[in-house]
């Protein structure tokens, strides 16, 4: 969780831009072994997690899953998150990604689904959770990913969106999710993956971002935190590593920007949406 109270925000003239300062002694190399140990030990604390995800599609009831997702699509093409009916573009992405992995994308009304997502596009090129909602990097990732899966990336104004995305980069090198928010390592994924999908990854200062992500590591426990010095957790560890992969980190396997999964896994099931080059 971003700790907003750490940033000084005083309404005086010459207010410094909200950002973090990376200390000179912050980690600057990838501590792979430490992270492996961290994840392994996290797995032993069975009270702290609900589920471990494996590469085992054969154990799930594909038809049931497809039926369930179909039942969540509304007339306007949007998707609810569950039977209680909350609409959010994140659910459009979840629906499309799930069905794409199962090879059942045609089970939903794709055209209507696309229409709804596009109705969430804003003047700044970004996307919100519902039509009229504020652009948000997380929602942008979901909508861009959705459009990649449904082969509709050409509907995006990539220069406009790319511009909004690279404005997320702060002097520290980290990325935030919206204007005047603190940087957070998970946005290194949401923003970076979006840039990759629309072919604008080079618009970010990659070296500075890499420094920021590495600074979010905890040298003692392993794992990544949302920003340097904070408590680590698996969520930010995943996105820190995935972000580094997109930046070309050699020690890490190639990660697909749409699904946040290893490319070799997706290659095997032949699910690799075309991206903007």
């Amino acid at each position, binding site marked *: 969780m971003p700790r907003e109270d750490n940033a000084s925000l005083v309404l005086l003239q010459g207010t410094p*831009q909200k950002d973090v300062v990376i200390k000179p002694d912050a980690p600057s190399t990838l501590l792979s072994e430490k992270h492996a140990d961290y994840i392994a030990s996290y797995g032993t604390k069975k009270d702290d997690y609900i589920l471990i995800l494996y590469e085992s599609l054969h154990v799930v009831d594909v038809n049931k899953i497809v039926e369930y997702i179909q039942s969540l699509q509304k007339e306007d093409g949007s998707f609810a998150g569950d039977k209680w009916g909350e609409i959010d573009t994140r659910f459009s992405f979840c629906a499309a990604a799930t069905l794409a992995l199962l090879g059942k994308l045609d089970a939903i009304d794709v055209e209507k689904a696309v229409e709804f997502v596009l109705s969430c596009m804003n003047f700044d090129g970004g996307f919100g959770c519902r039509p009229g909602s504020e652009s948000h990097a997380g929602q942008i990732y979901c909508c861009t990913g959705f459009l990649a899966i449904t082969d509709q990336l050409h*509907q995006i104004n990539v220069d*406009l969106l790319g511009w909004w995305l690279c404005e997320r980069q702060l002097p520290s090198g980290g990325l935030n999710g919206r204007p005047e928010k603190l940087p957070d390592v998970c946005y290194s994924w949401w923003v970076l993956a979006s840039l990759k999908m629309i072919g604008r990854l080079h618009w970010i200062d990659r070296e500075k971002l890499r420094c920021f992500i590495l600074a979010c590591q905890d040298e003692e426990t392993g794992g990544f935190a949302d920003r340097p010095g904070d408590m680590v957790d698996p969520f930010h560890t995943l996105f820190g590593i995935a972000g580094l992969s997109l930046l070309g980190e050699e020690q890490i396997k190639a990660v697909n920007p749409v699904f946040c999964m290893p490319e070799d896994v997706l290659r095997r099931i032949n699910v690799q949406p075309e991206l903007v080059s």
Partner: protein
Amino acid sequence: FADHSVWDSWFVFRLCSLFKKNYFIFCRKELILSGTLSPLKDLHLGKLALTKFPKSPETWIHRRWVLQQLIQENSLPAVVNKGNLGVAPAERIHRLVQEEMDVCSEAAGRYPSNYNAWSHRIWVLQNVGKLTTKVLLDELSSTKYWVSMHVSDHSGFHYRQFLLKSLIGRTVNDNNTLVQNQMGNEQNSSLQTEEECEGAEAVCVEEQSVDISHYLEEELDFCTDLIDTYPGHETLWCHRRCVFYLQHHLINKLPLLSVAASSVDSSDETLYNSHPNPTTSHMAQVMDVDGLNESSSKQGYTQETKRLKRAPMQDSFGPEMEYRFIDKVLSTCRDVDQARFATAYRKWLVTFLGQ
């Protein structure tokens, strides 16, 4: 749980913190569906929870579900459903909306740039209330002071952008479908009762042609004041982009949705091109967005100024004034960030509005 003493505020407040939030919220849904817990009481419960957890996504999501239940209740014949408050449905809806505006406002004050609170506020106007001119103008008026005290709150300013954009939508619709508006507000998804239609007619009398340009001008001036008073706030510059875009759009009277399918290309296409094109870009290098690179040396981050053919000037007032404003800021400001944002704004204008 049928015993109402259980819903003592303090007890409820502690309950919020103690139970695993998701499961507790699930229980509340079951209680509402079985008629044991009244939706209004549950909204009160949620309001308390938000004082401690102003961001809590589950609380906002559940709140929308409860409001949906109330809206459905409202659709029953007025005879059967005199309502919890014993007032006409339209009045009840109005009170509900006002209450939600207050709840959102409080939560927005408790957590900076509270996306969940502000997006809920928008949802309420779109799904519970009506996007009438009166409502939109009231909200513009009632949030003005708040945003001036929270100049970093991008969500707050975005809310005003939503209101202004909705006003433009209303103006366009009003001009085109005045007769239909007199029959009721067909833009809104909430159900119409006879009472509401009468109310809508009365409202329609006020809703003559709203001078939307006036409100946009006012907003731009408001933005100018804040930019001058509080240098170095990206939110204010983002707000300016939107207000200027809305003015530009309005002047050009182009459909808003044409923004969705355009791309910046080698031709004279502006942001408003409605023909979908495969996206191409001339940018082989890193995008020099903020001008900081001109004065700093960033390794591995090369500069490239984008060259574009300019679209024909359709409006000579807007962009000229903006350039003058930007130049004025650049020549008088002493804040590095302010200069950076002003420069970025100019580049944005040039690049995307073809000005």
